């Protein structure tokens, strides 16, 4: 008799150091932002991993003048890069310190998706209010209108 343990058919995809991941911000703090990792590259994950973006990893320049509230908000979709596999609480450490990384989708207080107008501002098309975010410069070939 043979006893065997069979797991799910597909092997679990894990984020590597240096991989670009798509994540959703779940809470912010004055020191860091906690995120759920949803996609690795372009493959969706069945169960989300937790990640942390520290305040000094949000931008490449002027790291001490960064305010987390003016870069991310809960509910934003963010492109980030994995810089470390994380600590004992299995929180991956992520960074958005590049032009192509940052917020890609954000909703305004009216519930409408906002339009980016610069690398640090987004505007709501309905109420015309401007909000601060760390916006990602997405390559034109990936944009769909």
């Amino acid at each position: 008799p043979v006893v065997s343990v069979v797991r799910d058919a597909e092997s679990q995809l894990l984020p590597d150091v240096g991989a670009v991941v798509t994540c959703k911000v779940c809470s912010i703090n004055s020191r860091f932002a906690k995120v759920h990792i949803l996609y690795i590259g372009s493959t969706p994950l069945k169960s989300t991993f937790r990640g942390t973006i520290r305040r000094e990893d949000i931008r490449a320049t002027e790291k001490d003048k960064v305010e987390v509230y003016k870069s991310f908000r809960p509910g934003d979709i963010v492109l980030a890069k994995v810089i470390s596999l994380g600590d004992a609480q299995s929180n991956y450490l992520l960074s958005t310190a590049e032009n192509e990384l940052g917020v890609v989708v954000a909703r305004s207080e009216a519930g409408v998706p906002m339009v980016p107008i610069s690398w640090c501002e987004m505007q709501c098309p309905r109420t015309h209010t401007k909000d601060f975010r760390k916006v990602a410069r997405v390559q034109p070939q990936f944009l769909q209108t």
Partner: protein
Amino acid sequence: VMAARGVPAEACVGQLVLPGDVLLLPAHPDEDGERLRLGAGAARRGRLLCGPGLRRGGAGLTVTKCGLLRHRPAGGGSGGGAFWVDSQQKRYVPVKGDHVIGIVTAKTGDLFKVDVGGSEQASLSYLAFEGATKRNRPNVQVGDLIYGQFLVANKDMEPELVCIDSSGRASGMGVIGQDGFLFKVSLGLIRKLLAPKCEIIQELSQLYPFELVLGMNGRIWVKAKTVQQTLIIVNILEACEYMTAEQRKQALAKLSAN
């Protein structure tokens, strides 16, 4: 439920409005058919301010709180006037810049946790006092009363309190002294008491001398010479919510006659 059609905003000033009402704004002559830009945006003449209880959207303003609609007409260079809703509320929501009275509930390392009456407790750093350094810590115990202002207060993060202003001076903030009496009133009464030249405070100060601290979170701290005088002032302030001016003057006349 009838879908409310837009009503011109000027027609409702001073009247009761309910959440969901749509208020139409007058078409601006400079706009010639364009949609009216409100609030943040280009500083054009006639820019309208949308105050608490109202939200911009579509053709006009949507009411989000029930109360009386108020309007301040355009005055000189301050834009095209402002609309807001005067509503009665007891539950406080932290707002950046508000001065509040908080109660210290916990002391952890270099942070104090302060109860300000909101959904979350505010955090207060021990360095946020005038003249505080890492060696020279402020003398704050659990249960003390603190008068401070909000540095950070939004719906996504924990509110942060400080007891110094932007230039580093205390300007009246910090730990509130011993004795005295703390009680809670509605937010509307606090706004009335904080108005310049408030009659209630002037009449009370002719009765007895007393110290008074008003917190925008609905908390008032009073201290007079004796416990009896303190309690009389507390009772009058609590009753001021529902008394008219004549009833208040009668009550104070009876007290000063004693």
